[in-house]
């Protein structure tokens, strides 16, 4: 069966985010034919099982892309093209740019069209008219807060979600949230993100007199760094020596101002984005990874920290408590509570080495049991195969 199944993983751009790329790699290693559609941000060398149907983001390349697939459909799939044109027209989605995006999908006609971001679901609903199965990932902001702020988006979800063939939820919490917009619970499968544990080899710890706290993530309000900085101010007032590094928040004015305002210039550093290897080193040289977020699905950086045997302190946002159990394999504190973050850090500082080791050992076990790359890949494959079986795909 696997040689015949064609799976499209659609995020809109190639390459996509780290965790989607991890999924693509894992699926292709299993020998399934993977299709990627979208615009080419950077050239990526995939293995032979991955077919990248990408266009460069210039008028010339887009025109060429459209011309090629327009011609192929005209010559070999004329009726299907006419049908698609009618659908796109009825949805007021028939500009050249839409055709340029949709024609290649119709031409290659994967069995599964897996949309990674919920906001795109209405756009791609037409694939079901051509016997492609529509799978949607439930991730982060697209489910957790965008529809709260945008009633039109919420309405669109209500309209589209009941028709999706299968949902992939990154956590139980986000699955529950999606049901509020009409996602049928029986169509949702939880598949946690996974890591390749071999790439998280032990790196010797760099001992430092200060307690080194690190957060890693893009500069965005949902990361809750303002609460972390308020917590730092509390630590400083209590004369607790620490350093705090936020990787990915360089140039973020709100934080720059807060650091200055709270007199934390000597204690806090904002860094730009780092490559994965540098992140692994940073994690290893840190006393804890702090995730002060107000919203997350399951933060991959927490999984990476646990795999790297770095202590984790997270808020109880989104699906984080499905991974981190307080004082078992890490530490959990409430969202939007800088006092709680500070108190928890003080407690962690007070732990002896044996306690810390027990917790990091337990964290590593959690990753081994619940978040390996092979678990993620087989979980996703089961999801795809179940959808196809239900629809009598031979």
């Amino acid at each position, binding site marked *: 069966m696997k040689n015949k199944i064609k799976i499209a993983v659609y995020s809109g751009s190639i390459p996509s985010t780290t965790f989607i790329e991890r999924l693509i790699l894992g699926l292709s290693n299993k020998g399934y034919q993977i299709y990627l559609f979208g615009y080419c941000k950077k050239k990526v060398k995939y293995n032979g099982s991955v077919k990248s149907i990408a266009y460069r983001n210039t008028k010339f390349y887009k025109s060429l892309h459209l011309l090629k697939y327009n011609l192929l459909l005209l010559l070999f799939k004329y009726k299907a093209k006419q049908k698609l044109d009618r659908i796109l027209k009825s949805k007021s989605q028939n500009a050249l740019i839409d055709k340029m995006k949709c024609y290649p999908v119709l031409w290659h006609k994967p069995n599964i069209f897996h949309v990674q971001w919920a906001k795109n679901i209405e756009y791609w609903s037409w694939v079901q008219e051509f016997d492609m199965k529509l799978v949607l990932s439930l991730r982060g902001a697209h489910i*957790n*807060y*965008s529809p*709260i*702020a*945008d009633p039109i988006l919420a309405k669109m979800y209500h309209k589209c979600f009941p028709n999706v063939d299968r949902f992939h939820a990154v956590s139980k919490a986000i699955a529950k949230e999606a049901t509020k917009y009409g996602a049928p619970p029986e169509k949702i499968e939880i598949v946690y993100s996974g890591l390749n544990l071999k790439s998280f080899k032990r790196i010797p710890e760099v001992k430092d007199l200060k307690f080194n706290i690190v957060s890693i993530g893009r500069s965005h*309000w*949902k990361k809750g760094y*303002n609460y972390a900085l*308020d917590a730092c101010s509390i630590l400083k007032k209590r004369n607790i020596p620490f350093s705090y590094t936020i990787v990915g928040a360089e140039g973020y*004015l*709100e934080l*720059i*101002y*807060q650091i*200055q*305002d709270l007199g934390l210039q000597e204690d806090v550093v904002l860094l730009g984005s780092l490559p994965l290897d540098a992140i692994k080193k940073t994690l290893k040289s840190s006393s804890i990874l702090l995730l002060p977020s*107000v*919203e997350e699905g399951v933060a991959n950086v927490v999984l990476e920290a646990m795999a790297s045997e770095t202590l984790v302190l997270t808020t109880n946002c989104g699906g984080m408590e499905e991974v981190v159990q307080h004082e078992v394999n890490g530490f959990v504190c409430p*969202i*939007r509570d800088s006092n709680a973050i500070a108190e928890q850090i003080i407690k962690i500082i007070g732990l002896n080495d044996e306690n810390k080791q027990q917790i990091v050992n337990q964290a590593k076990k959690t990753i081994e049991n619940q978040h390996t790359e092979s678990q993620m890949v087989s979980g996703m494959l089961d999801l795809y195969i179940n959808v196809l079986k239900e629809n009598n795909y031979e």
Partner: protein
Amino acid sequence: MSKKRIGIVLSAVPGYSETFFKNKIKGLQDNGFEVLLFVDQNQTKSTNLPCEVIIAPDFNVNLILKIIIIFKTFLKAIFISTKQSCLLYKLDKEDGISLKQRIKQLLLNQFLLSKKLDWLHFGFGMLAVNRENVAQAIGAKMAVSFRGFDLYLSPLKHKECYNLLFIKKVYYHVLSNQMKKILIERGVSEPMIIVIPPAVDVTYFQPNKLQLSNQQVEMVTIARLHWIKGLEYTLESLALLKKEGLDFKYTIIGDGEEFERLIFATHQLDIKEQVIFKGRITQAEVRKELQKANIYIQYSIQEGFCNATIEAQAMGLFCIVSDADGLSENVIDAKTGWVVPKRKPKLLAEKIKEVINLSEEKQQEMRIATINRIKKNFHIIQQQEDFVKFYL
């Protein structure tokens, strides 16, 4: 004697507070000044103002048009404002500005060189950057107003952006003593700085007759939805009050980039039913909202001074503000309102409770003190007189 000519430089023709700006221009004109407004074209909304408006050429156009505009501007520099252009070029050179930047500044500032002025007044600090020698080149005195964001935040984003400005002979207008202190710390000499706080039209924002009672408390904030306004902390304090059983309604007037952040906070803090986002509304609607409310909250993280808080005080609302920058001069703690340390939602919640439980006598006493202080210190006539003194 000919009229003194003041050129005011803004990024755009004021839209939202146009009435206020018109009054300011009129005040100067009534006192014998001629006012000219210089703005950037690409942000212009309307030019319905009682003064001449000079619009900068738009260089953000296609290549062919850009070449034509550059050529025309260059001709102006050579044949029309020859003397001023030569002087600007020379002064920029003396300041060690690179040749490329000198030519760029000469072209971009050409529209400022076209008029003979007594004063060239930049409405915001950042508008004076890369224009430090323009006033001298046209033989005018130079003034710069700092409003808050441009003093507290712009230097964090554009490191050392005011280094050249602060060594020039410039008269500064700031909104608060706190801002004056910062300028002095940065090397500006004290006599060059004047504090003129914002003013309110007390005939428009008249006191209402509301009184706090045990019924639903109506609170309001006027602010754009931006992190500097501390609205997330405000919502957290309101969530604490809801948990304690307080019946309230909170209206936020203003729009901005952080709507998603704030509406998500109301959802997560379970106060979605209590919080209303009004968006941007007209001045008449603002007044109506203030008339309905009991308490005005301005729990900002950074604030130059805050006009809205003055308007709320003029209407006799109980104002609770943070101690951010100019706010503690705007409201006198425990006399005309309350000042709470910023970033402390628990303290804000405590203060709101305290205010709600004030005795009727105390409420009345505070209201009278607040309204009188605004009438005395923040009257628009007073502000006009201060500006006239500034330019004389």
